[in-house]
């Protein structure tokens, strides 16, 4: 048991050190949502009218509306960043080193995923802190209540990255795949506009958004920030995490595809 904890600490510690050594990655992860918040949202606040929808009990500014979506955006980009580093690790030998540890492969991958998720959550809190400096605030206890939602959302998006990393053969293929994942996931969600607004323009687009697990990460975060629980979103996120985690385990099974590519 102490060995399992020791290996978890080592893998997470390595993720953290890697993050500390890549300060530009931290800055990029912060600048991206801040640009959306301070530029995009400011420009669109007049154009996009919002009605009162749960969990909000009064009219809110557009900046306030998109904060949960931008938190989820940080998790999404970090999940993909983590998957990129997994592909890199596979091209180098670090992935082999990890997978030839005597500990169960599922545990090793989970530790890697959890370490990357904690880094993402740190970045979300840094983002929320800066947003608060610009007077975009949530209920105080909301910042605490949202923590499990951020971890769960981070695990789900990290598991998605894990799945993608097992199917991406080389780093060069990565950018293309990301374009087919990040942008559709982000724009076809409730991150930038509520689903009822999407329905006004297209029923089909609304249904796609409602089916997108990323929408439910956003909604889970949104409700928790206001000290409420969206059970449907929680069920979606837990279910997606389990499914994606199972696919990742399957893909990384030694009798299957991943290492056959001589990576």
């Amino acid at each position, binding site marked *: 048991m102490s060995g399992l904890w020791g290996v978890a*600490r080592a893998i997470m510690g390595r993720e953290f050190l890697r993050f500390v050594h890549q300060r530009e990655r931290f800055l990029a992860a912060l600048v991206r949502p801040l640009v959306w918040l301070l530029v995009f949202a400011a420009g669109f606040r007049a154009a996009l009218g919002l009605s009162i929808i749960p969990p909000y009990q009064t009219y809110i500014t557009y900046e306030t509306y998109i904060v949960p979506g931008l938190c989820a955006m940080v998790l999404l980009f970090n999940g993909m960043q983590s998957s990129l580093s997994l592909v890199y690790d596979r091209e180098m030998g670090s992935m*082999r080193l990890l997978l030839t540890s005597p*500990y169960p492969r599922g545990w*090793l991958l989970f530790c890697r995923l959890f370490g990357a998720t904690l880094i993402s959550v740190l970045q979300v809190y840094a983002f929320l802190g800066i947003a608060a400096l610009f007077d975009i605030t949530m209920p105080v206890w909301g910042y605490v209540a949202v923590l499990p939602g951020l971890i769960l959302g981070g695990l789900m998006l990290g598991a998605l990255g894990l799945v993608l990393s097992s199917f991406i053969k080389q780093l060069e293929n990565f950018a293309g795949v990301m374009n087919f994942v990040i942008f559709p996931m982000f724009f076809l969600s409730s991150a930038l506009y509520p689903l009822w607004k999407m329905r006004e323009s297209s029923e089909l687009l609304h249904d796609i958004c409602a089916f997108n697990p990323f929408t439910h990460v956003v909604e889970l975060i949104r409700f928790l920030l206001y000290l409420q629980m969206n059970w449907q979103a929680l069920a979606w996120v837990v279910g997606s995490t389990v499914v994606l985690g199972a696919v990742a385990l399957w893909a990384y099974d030694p009798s299957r595809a991943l290492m056959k590519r001589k990576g």
Partner: protein
Amino acid sequence: MAELEVRDLSFRYGAKQALDRVSFALPEATFCALLGPNGAGKSTLVSLLTRLLVSPEGQVVVAGHDMARAPRRALAHLGVVFQQPTLDLNLTVRQNMRYFAALHGLPRKGLDGRIDAALDRLGMAERAGEKAADLNGGHRRRMELARALLHRPRVLLLDEPTVGLDAAARAAIVGHVHDLARDGLCVLWTTHLTDEVRDGDHLLVLHQGRILADGRTRDIRGEMPLSDWFLSRTEVVA
């Protein structure tokens, strides 16, 4: 008793047969060179020996432990130097060693002493605090070797470990691993370079997924230089 035993191991990539009923057994205190041209199946064999791949056909036994039935115990007795670098260049040599130690569940108590001893054996003790990025190619390989020995494995597997090294660094690492074998370790060294193989070494020649020769190098090559013997066998067959 054999420290590393492979029995009737086969593997296919779809329709392509990468390994075909490969069998061999290596006792302790052995330096075995696994020689094969590119595409012979060496990388596949290394992946199967380290459980990066699993084959439904055949058996791998490390220090008496079946890789399929008891992978944790088998892997715990196996040290591996991969062809690809495994070091995190942002971390120091000691941090890299600690990371590996944790992956193998080594106790933290006394770990620093163990790391120092492993580095010292390779003449790397004074570099423990340096960043891996600051080491030259030869030193990085030596560190990989020190890392692979940290958990005191009974079998050491090296996958073309001299790729990219200059002549002096190559000679040093070949010599050092021979010393380890003389001291009792069972070593499997994969290569396509005949000059890394000594006459007294155990030699396995792998070609087109099959073992072409298995025995003492001197006996296999006869009167021919090993390079000529190897070319004559692998090029003619190809």
